């Protein structure tokens, strides 16, 4: 009686006669020996074992439950002796090596063998940008890295440049990529060589790893540690930025927090309503709003993803798509900014002003100003800005948009009369609109005897939008006469941010 044993191949159970089993074992052993010099030995063996299981399964039936010697023999015959098909493999290899020496490589290259810039992730310190550049320009990677560091120290654009290249350049994942990176033609032989090199690199890496720990000098080690710390620190910084930006995005953009220096009866204006103060057509603002929102969201996701990736050393399969879309969105963003920017800028191209001249025939003139940014001191200190405790730029009231700050200039009169000249200025894209907006500025100097009170605010309708509306007042003083200026303002206390309750008056007499 023949002895039967139970074997397990690839998760399937078989009953097999002992001598049949010996035969099979011997075959697989011979196969393994023959394959020892071939790349991908394990996989070839696995595939063949799977085929053995299939062939065995086909031979078994209800009536036949045990694999016999004949079954194994026939299976081996079907598969072939290792010599039969593996000799082929090695002949194949030597043939192609000969071919390689001829110069008809170009004929076998199947895709553009044009050199391309990649990130060399297999020899990377951070993301392989320097390493990829080094491959492209056939330079030593150390030189490229030193250049990057010098760029950063000298001009400061090394880091942003690195980040841009990181986002833009694809990483050389496949062997074909690696060949393009090195500018070698993509021939079957080169691909094979590259695959073999990769296998060698991998085994070398794993072998070296243990000995590396001992062999690495203190200096190298500390460099590596510093590199890791910088990379992690940078990751943490990006993550922080991303989180901060997302919080800001939620509060300012979605929550419409009053984040702009424009005050209304209900508090400060949100960003969208602030935008409405500039755009003639709300539709344009809507476009800008949606696109800027989308760009911000993608940018925030990128910051968080990149930060997490660096900080925790993770790999996301979707990361490269994200990087591409960030790049795409950045381009769209730049285009949109230019488009809408020029749209708004056009509204400021033409400036028009209207002057009204009030002639005053009197012996002496008194000018009363109040709580003003630009006051008597302008005469001596042009542009001097006296702060007065307000913390908004514009105020929106029922009368329209109220803006503070009327510039007062003191000049010599061309004749023997005092002149008070009011100049209203506004911009727009054409003369007519600019002039209309200048006319719409409401500003009134009040007179009481020879005292003229100049308010420090003026209004214009909200529909006019913000078009650089300004009011200048020129006080022209005739020769030999003088003007008395009463200026009322609030003083800061010793604490710069707290202002005195009661205004202070200051009088100056100016003669020209």
């Amino acid at each position: 009686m023949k002895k039967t044993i139970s074997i397990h191949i690839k998760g399937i159970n078989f009953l097999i006669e002992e001598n049949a089993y010996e035969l099979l074992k011997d075959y697989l052993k011979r196969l393994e020996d023959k394959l020892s010099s071939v790349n991908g030995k394990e996989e070839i063996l696995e595939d063949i074992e799977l085929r053995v299981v299939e062939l065995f399964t086909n031979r078994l039936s209800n009536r036949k439950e045990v694999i016999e010697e004949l079954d194994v023999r026939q299976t081996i015959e079907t598969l072939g002796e290792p010599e039969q098909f593996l000799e082929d493999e090695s002949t194949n290899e030597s043939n192609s090596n000969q071919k390689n020496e001829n110069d008809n490589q170009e004929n076998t290259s199947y895709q553009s063998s044009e050199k391309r810039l990649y990130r060399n992730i297999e020899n990377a310190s951070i993301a392989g940008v320097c390493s990829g550049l080094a491959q492209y320009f056939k330079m030593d990677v150390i030189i490229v890295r030193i250049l990057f560091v010098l760029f950063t120290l000298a001009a400061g654009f090394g880091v942003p440049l690195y980040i841009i290249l990181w986002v833009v350049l694809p990483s050389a994942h496949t062997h074909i990529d690696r060949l393009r990176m090195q500018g070698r033609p993509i021939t079957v032989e080169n691909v094979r060589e590259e695959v073999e090199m990769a296998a060698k690199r991998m085994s070398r890496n794993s072998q070296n790893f243990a000995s590396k720990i001992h062999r690495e000098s203190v200096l190298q080690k500390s460099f590596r540690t510093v590199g890791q710390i910088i990379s992690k620190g940078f990751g943490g910084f990006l993550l922080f930025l991303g989180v901060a930006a997302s919080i800001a995005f939620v509060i300012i953009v979605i929550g419409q927090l009053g984040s702009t220096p424009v005050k209304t009866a209900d508090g400060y204006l949100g960003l969208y309503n602030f935008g409405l103060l500039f755009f003639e057509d709300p539709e344009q603002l809507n476009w800008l709003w949606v696109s800027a929102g989308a760009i911000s969201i993608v940018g925030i996701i990128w910051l968080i993803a990149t930060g997490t990736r660096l900080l925790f050393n993770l790999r996301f399969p979707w990361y490269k798509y994200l990087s591409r879309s960030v790049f795409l969105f950045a381009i769209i963003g730049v285009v949109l900014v230019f488009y809408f920017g020029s749209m708004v800028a056009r509204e400021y191209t033409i400036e028009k002003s209207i002057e009204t001249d009030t002639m005053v025939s009197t012996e002496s003139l008194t000018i009363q100003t109040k709580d003003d940014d630009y006051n008597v001191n302008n005469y001596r200190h042009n542009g001097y800005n006296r702060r007065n405790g307000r913390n908004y730029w514009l105020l929106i009231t029922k009368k329209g948009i109220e803006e503070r700050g009327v510039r007062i200039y003191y000049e010599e009169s061309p004749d023997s009369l005092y002149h008070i000249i009011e100049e209203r200025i506004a911009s727009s894209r054409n003369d007519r609109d600019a002039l209309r907006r200048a006319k719409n500025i409401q500003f009134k100097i009040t007179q009481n005897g020879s005292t003229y009170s100049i308010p420090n605010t003026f209004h214009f309708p909200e529909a006019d939008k913000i078009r650089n509306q300004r009011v200048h007042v020129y006080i022209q003083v005739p020769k030999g006469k003088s003007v008395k200026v009463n200026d009322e303002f609030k003083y800061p206390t010793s604490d710069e941010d707290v202002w005195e309750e009661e205004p202070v008056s200051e009088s100056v007499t100016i003669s020209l």
Partner: protein
Amino acid sequence: MNAENTQAQMRKGILEYCILSILKKKEAYPSEILESLKIAKLIVVEGTLYPLLTRLKNMELLGYRWEESTSGPPRKYYSLTDEGKAFHKELTVTWSELSSAVNQLSK
């Protein structure tokens, strides 16, 4: 030199291209590929296929996925990668040039 050796060499030369062609139509597991190749009398012993498949896979011309089978062990379904498709395209050009050249010469 006997004809058998030359025949084997000829077959071997185009085997790679044929495997790619089979997989171009649809993904397949090794036994299916073997069947097509046997029908076309391109293969003598089955073992020839496996090193080739592994090599093509290592060149990233092929990819594979596992699929459970009801009647046996799990199956390894091979398919062409994008690079494999490009490679196949290139070989198709070469093959048509070759075959027309050979036909021309052997008329």
